[in-house]
C-alpha cells in the first residue's frame, strides 16, 4: 500500500501530469537550453537536484514555516540549492556551464519548482514529497531530452555530438536557433492534443456502444 502510493506520485509526474507537455510549466529554461541533447541533460540534472533537495527541506520544515511568509522562505531554500548546483557544475563540467550561462541561476525563477513547493511539498509528508519531486523532475528531464534530441538531429545532424547522417545531410539550421524551440514544442503539444482527442473520441465511442447494447 505504502509503496504503491510513492510509485503513484512518481508516475503521475512522468506521464499523466507531465510538467512540460501537460501543465506547460517551466518553459523558459526548457526552450532556451534545448539546442543540443547534452545541454538538455545538464539542465535536467540540475533541475532534478534543486527540485528534490528543496522539496525535501520544505516538506521537513512544513510545520515550522509561517504561512504568511512561506513564498519567501521557499524562494530562499530554492536559491540556496541553485547556488550549490551552479558552483558544482562550474567545478565539474566548465564547458557545459559556460554554454548554459545565465540559465543555471535562472532555475530559481522556474515556476515548476516553486509550484511544486506550494502545491505539494508544503502539505505532504517528506517521503511522498521526495517521490513527487523525483517524478516531476524525471518528467521535466524526459521533455528536455526529447526536445533537445529532436532539435539537435534536425538542426545539426548529430545526437549527443555524434554524427548520424552522411556528408550529404543538409542541416536545418533554424531548428537550433530560437524559432526552432518554439516550433518544435508547438508541434509536440499538437501531437499531445491529437492523442488526447483520439482517446476522448475512443472513450465516447465505447460509452455509446455500451449504451446502445444495454
Amino acid at each position, binding site marked *: 500500500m505504502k509503496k504503491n502510493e510513492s510509485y503513484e506520485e512518481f508516475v503521475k509526474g512522468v506521464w499523466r501530469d507531465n510538467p512540460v507537455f501537460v501543465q*506547460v510549466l517551466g518553459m523558459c*529554461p526548457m526552450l532556451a537550453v534545448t539546442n543540443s541533447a547534452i545541454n538538455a541533460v545538464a539542465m535536467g540534472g540540475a533541475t532534478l537536484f534543486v527540485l528534490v533537495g528543496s522539496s525535501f527541506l520544505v516538506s521537513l520544515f512544513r510545520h515550522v514555516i509561517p504561512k504568511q511568509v512561506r513564498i519567501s522562505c521557499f524562494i530562499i531554500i530554492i536559491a540556496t540549492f541553485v547556488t550549490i548546483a551552479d558552483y558544482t557544475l562550474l567545478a565539474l563540467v566548465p564547458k557545459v556551464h559556460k554554454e548554459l550561462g545565465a540559465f543555471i541561476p535562472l532555475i530559481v525563477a522556474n515556476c515548476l519548482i516553486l509550484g511544486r513547493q506550494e502545491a505539494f511539498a508544503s502539505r505532504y509528508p517528506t517521503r511522498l514529497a521526495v517521490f513527487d519531486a523525483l517524478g516531476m523532475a524525471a518528467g521535466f528531464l524526459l521533455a528536455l531530452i526529447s526536445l533537445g534530441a529532436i532539435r539537435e538531429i534536425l538542426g545539426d545532424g548529430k545526437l549527443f555530438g555524434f554524427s548520424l547522417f552522411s556528408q550529404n545531410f543538409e542541416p536545418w539550421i533554424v531548428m537550433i536557433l530560437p*524559432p526552432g524551440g518554439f516550433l518544435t514544442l*508547438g*508541434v509536440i503539444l499538437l501531437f499531445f492534443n491529437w492523442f488526447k482527442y483520439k482517446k476522448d473520441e475512443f472513450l465516447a465511442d465505447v460509452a455509446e456502444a455500451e449504451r446502445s447494447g444495454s
Partner: protein
Amino acid sequence: MDNLLWIFISALLVNNFVLAYFLGLCPFLGVSNSLETSARLGLATTFVMLVTAVCAWVLNTYVLIHAPYLRLICFIVVIASTVQFIEMLIKKLSPALFRAMGIFLPLITTNCAILGLAIFATNRGYGFVEGIVYALGAGIGFTLALVLLAGLREESELSDIPKLIQGTAMNLIIAGILSMAFMGFAGLFSTS
C-alpha cells in the same frame, strides 16, 4: 552615446528577451489574450525592470564584491521585496495606476525576465547608465513581443481554426514565426 544606443536596440530587437532568450514566457503565453491587459503588464514589467537594474547595480557595487556567492539569493530577495514595496507605494500614491496594473504587480516577482535582466547586466559588467538603458530596452522589447502576440491572438479568435490546434500549441507556433521575423534584425548593426 553610440554604445548606449547599441545596447538599447540590441535589447529591444536583436536580442529580444522573449523571442531570442526565452525569458518571461509564462506571462507571454498566459496573459496575452487581450491587447489591453498585455500592454498594462508590459508597462508594469518595464517599470519593475528599471527599479531592478538600479538595485542590481547598487548591490553589485557595494555589497556583492565582498561575497559573490551570495549573488543569487541577494538578487531574488531584493527583487521580491522591491516589488512588494512598489506595490504598497503605488497603492498609496495613485490608486488609479494600482487598479490599472492590478494583479500583475505581484506576479512579476516570479517572472524570470526580471532576474534574467539583473544577471545579464551583471555578467556583462554594465555601469549605472548602461544598466538603465538596458532595462528600458528589454522592458519595451518585452512589451512589444507581448502586444504583437496579443494582437495576433485577438485576430485569430475571429477566424475558423481547427479545434485541435487551438490553445498553447498554436500560440507557440505563432511565437516561432514571430521569433523568425525578429531574427531578421540580427543584421541591423553588423555593418556599422
